[in-house]
């Protein structure tokens, strides 16, 4: 009763105040634009110590202060996979929940977020076989025609879930034995990298069901120089860095991937250097390649942070710049206009460099993130 009195009093007070004063409205929530500006990015914080409660923060890199940079956030549970639609203002998360937080019944879902509201607008319940691993780009991808989400599963049986986010329908679970990750291929196929040094490709029919498979020749040797599946990607083409410093380009634009000749990142002056980090490679919209590199590479250094970013012109197969980093970097990405080079450094801050000349433009910290391991340019 006391509480009711108090609420009544508040309402009366608020009402009285409003009668003579233009009060700030109740319940106002900020919207976001349908098409996010080119310098907005998504920072995925896996929150290692509390992995059930990870989140993704939306940042405007053109803003000056952390408060202005922070546009909003959405939760992203249990090392969620994240992909953006290219044709709809939607973000997809593949998440895992337990009915009692860390235990109970497991539910895997594809959660659909509206970019205009940062609210979940729907979900598709998945099988409970999603791979749970360090976040990386090619654990979930949209098909090139932007109609189907492809989710990598590992139990340790390896498969790919096909999900229709438009019809909100789980379509298929396609085995990819001995292979991992998803690379969109052609309009509606996908490929995966295999432990035997091949690419395995699955063609999907109009319903999203498997309509045929193919396997490439063996084009790399995982024992002597493994390809890192965290490739640079641009316009249907991937460049895989290798442990020992080669670029292996693959053209995924056709119905079957076309393996192109590999070439070395290294020269006399960089002998012994290696690519490394959690997301070591990225490609710009201008077609340039970027990679995090560290010297004195050794067995086991393939996830060491890079002390430099190297810039390559893939058509000339040539390095065109070396950018020293303020702090060693673990994760590399670019804004969609290829103007800004994004580096998550070993202090877990976001360093923003000018992509054209490597100048450090700003460091973003104090945005409530703990282990932001992946960053995406808004598309």
């Amino acid at each position, binding site marked *: 009763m006391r509480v009711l009195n108090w609420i009544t009093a508040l309402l009366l007070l608020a009402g009285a105040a409003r009668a003579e004063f233009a*009060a700030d409205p109740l319940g106002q929530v900020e919207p976001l634009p349908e098409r996010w500006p080119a310098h907005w990015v998504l920072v995925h914080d896996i929150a290692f110590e509390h992995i059930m409660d990870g989140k993704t923060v939306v940042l405007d890199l053109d803003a000056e202060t952390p408060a202005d940079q922070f546009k909003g956030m959405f939760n992203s549970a249990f090392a969620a996979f994240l992909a953006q639609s290219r044709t709809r203002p939607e973000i997809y998360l593949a998440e895992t929940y337990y009915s009692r937080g860390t235990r109970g019944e497991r539910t895997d879902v594809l959660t659909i977020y509206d970019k205009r509201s940062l609210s979940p607008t729907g979900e598709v319940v998945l099988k409970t076989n999603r791979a749970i691993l360090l976040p990386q780009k090619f654990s979930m991808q949209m098909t090139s025609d932007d109609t189907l989400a492809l989710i990598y599963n590992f139990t340790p049986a390896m498969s790919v879930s096909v999900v229709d986010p438009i019809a909100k329908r789980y379509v298929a679970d396609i085995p990819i034995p001995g292979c991992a990750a998803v690379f969109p291929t052609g309009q509606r196929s996908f490929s995966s990298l295999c432990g035997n040094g091949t690419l395995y490709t699955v063609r999907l029919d109009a319903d999203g069901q498997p309509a045929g498979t193919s396997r490439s020749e063996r084009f790399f040797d995982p024992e002597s120089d493994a390809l890192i599946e965290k490739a640079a990607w641009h316009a249907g083409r991937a460049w895989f860095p290798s442990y020992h410093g080669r670029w292996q380009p693959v053209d995924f634009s056709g119905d079957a991937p076309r393996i192109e000749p590999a070439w070395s990142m290294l020269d006399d002056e960089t002998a012994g250097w290696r690519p490394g980090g959690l997301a070591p490679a990225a490609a710009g919209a201008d077609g340039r390649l970027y990679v995090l590199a560290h010297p004195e590479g050794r067995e086991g250094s393939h996830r060491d942070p890079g002390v430099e970013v190297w810039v390559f012109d893939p058509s000339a197969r040539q390095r065109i710049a070396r950018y020293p980093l303020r702090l060693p970097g673990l994760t590399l990405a670019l804004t969609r206009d290829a103007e800004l080079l994004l580096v998550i450094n070993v202090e877990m801050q976001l360093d923003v460099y000018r992509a054209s000349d490597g100048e450090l433009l700003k460091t973003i910290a104090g945005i409530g993130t703990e282990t932001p391991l992946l960053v995406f340019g808004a598309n």
Partner: protein
Amino acid sequence: MNWLDQWTERRLRGIAQRSSRRSFLGRLGGLLAGAATLPLLPVARGADKAPESGDPTSCDYWRYCATDGFLCACCGGSASSCPPGTEMSPITWIGTCTNPVDNAAYVISYNDCCGKSACGNCSCTRNEGDRPIYQPQLNNEYNWCLGTEHQTYNCSVARVIGKAD
């Protein structure tokens, strides 16, 4: 607080921010009027809006005299609006703050924005006027995401809802 050395005071602030309202919040009642620390400036006033000065992303901003939590202005919202994807709690606590521009007292409604995890930015907390949990309208240990679809706390706004006099 001069019995605490500067180190301790810094600690205290951190702890106060982390513990007291970082997620549990809810200064109610607003018995205390914030002191006006800026000189009275001659400013053109609209007939029905509080005149404005100051930085809504700073804990010193005049409306925050009785706030307690993360400032939504640092979380994708503003001094009076919630970040995208959150829901504003209709159950609120009330403060009375002095506007440094006109030196008048305004009634401020401190609403929580709910449904997502802690924003984590711009903690801003004081315990003045706080009373035990048996006086909920004056207590900031409660999570005040009440009457919303979800009780998860993201941040708090400070809406001007009227003149106090």
